[in-house]
């Protein structure tokens, strides 16, 4: 997805409501779908997406048009979802204790190659893994954010992002195998 026009962001920063509406119409579907894939429930996803945009409006003055607006937006959405997870008592810790033996993400690692027959299998397997794993996989593979962006987005160290990705793929593989 391309970035929104910088002029719109500059106007939104000055609390221009039309500019905010432009941001809303540009990102609403993407944010709703992102949240939906994290929470796996349509009504909750709608409520959380609405809350995300209300928070965006409340923090418009902190937009930096020269920085990555999309990452900032997804950060807010992720925080909204994680606050909701915490309220529901879902296990969501972002940090993990660094394990020197834990592997790091490598794109073409043979041992974690996934054979996915149907996208439905993938969706169901994603629903069975931990939320943080679901989040990093979604951000990295679906939304196309790189390591550094995910680091900023989740406010966790780079190594933790890589470890999460590695473990997320392993967990996804196990979930797919169990499913089949």
């Amino acid at each position, binding site marked *: 997805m391309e970035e929104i026009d910088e002029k719109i962001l500059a106007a939104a920063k000055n609390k221009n409501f039309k500019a905010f509406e432009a941001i809303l*119409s540009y990102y*609403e579907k993407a944010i709703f*779908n992102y949240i939906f894939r994290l929470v796996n429930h349509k009504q909750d996803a*709608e409520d959380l997406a609405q809350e995300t945009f209300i928070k965006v409006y*409340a923090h418009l003055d902190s937009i930096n048009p020269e920085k990555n607006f999309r990452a900032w937006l997804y950060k807010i959405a992720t925080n909204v979802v994680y606050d909701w997870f915490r309220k529901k008592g879902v296990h969501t810790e972002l940090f993990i204790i660094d394990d020197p033996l834990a592997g790091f993400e490598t*794109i*073409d*690692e043979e041992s974690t190659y996934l054979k996915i027959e149907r996208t439905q299998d*993938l969706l169901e397997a994603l629903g069975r893994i931990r939320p943080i794993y679901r989040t990093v996989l979604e951000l990295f*593979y679906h939304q196309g954010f790189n390591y550094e962006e995910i680091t900023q987005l989740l406010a966790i160290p780079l190594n933790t992002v890589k470890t999460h990705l590695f473990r997320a793929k392993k967990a996804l593989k196990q979930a797919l195998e169990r499913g089949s």
Partner: protein
Amino acid sequence: MDNLSEKFKEIPEEKLPANFRRRVKRKLFFVRFKVSFLVFSALAFAGLLVSGWYLWVGAGEMGTISFINLVFSDYQISGFLNGITDMATDFIPIVPTVAFLLDLILLAFVAKIFLALKKITFNNGRLSF
């Protein structure tokens, strides 16, 4: 694993719920006018207290309370209604009564909006922003 990106992209997009944008804008309306809304509510509540107090004092002075007590102690529905009709025009001051009723309706409306506002802007009992 390099197929994962492609598989993710094959996941069908969920359709955006109907009126999503309108709902966001409606919630934002409450957020934007939250302060004005709270001031307005406080004024409406003050108005209710003043008109209510005025009515109470007025009713006490004119003996309406003892009249109502009399009606209830010797209860007859037709007598009660006739009494109310007659006494209402003579004793009840119209302006504060109308003000009181209007304030009451206004505050009921405000309470309804407040419940929606609370859902939107309060988080764990604190104002979110």
